[in-house]
């Protein structure tokens, strides 16, 4: 199935892209997608932990299972205000 990935701030710098459509296995969890991204782009990994993630614009846990068409974003440390 396909999800729509967004990259912001340092993650955009490291990946060299701000968005992409990506195929993931059925049943994949947020954490699985992150692990796959880190294998491709080791520079994303800063702490070994999965960063905060948003699915369809809401914070979600790393164990959440992805669904076809989800909008997924891993979020570098936020610094608003």
């Amino acid at each position, binding site marked *: 199935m396909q999800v729509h990935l967004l990259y*912001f*701030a340092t993650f955009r710098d490291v990946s060299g892209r701000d968005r992409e459509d990506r195929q993931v296995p059925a049943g994949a969890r947020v954490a699985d997608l992150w692990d796959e991204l880190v294998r491709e782009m080791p520079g994303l990994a800063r702490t070994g932990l999965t960063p905060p993630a948003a699915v369809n614009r809401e914070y979600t846990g790393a164990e959440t299972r992805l669904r076809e068409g989800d909008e997924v*974003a891993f979020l*570098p440390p*936020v*610094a*608003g205000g």
Partner: protein
Amino acid sequence: MHLTRDPIDVAALLSSVRPSDGGVCLFLGVVRNENAGRSTTRIEYEAYGPMAEDELARIARGVELEWPGVQVRVRHRVGSLEVGEASVAILACAPHRADAFAACRAAIDRIKSTVPIWKKEFHPDGSSDWVDPTRGGVTGHS
């Protein structure tokens, strides 16, 4: 809309004060000329726009529920800001000042911790850094 590319209109925010309000607390976050010992010339704010809108609305609503009678208004700027420009404005109005202060403070604390907005500081030598509050300053420059 809580996000804006244009300068925050403080006078417009203040016009939302209600006749029953006796205390008004306005917080402005302003671009400083230095951070963690390094000079700053400007800051670029980037947002995950639709999610940041939702989060800002959720925080304002949550604070209003937690402090009944308080009205909260929030604006956050995105784009390139010069030193002295306001990046965020929070207006909390209440019948009495204690609630206005508490609600305003809670709102800015929550905004800083959860709203998907990032900032890149630019220095006089042309270098820049993404600010990482979890590292007590900045990440490696980009």
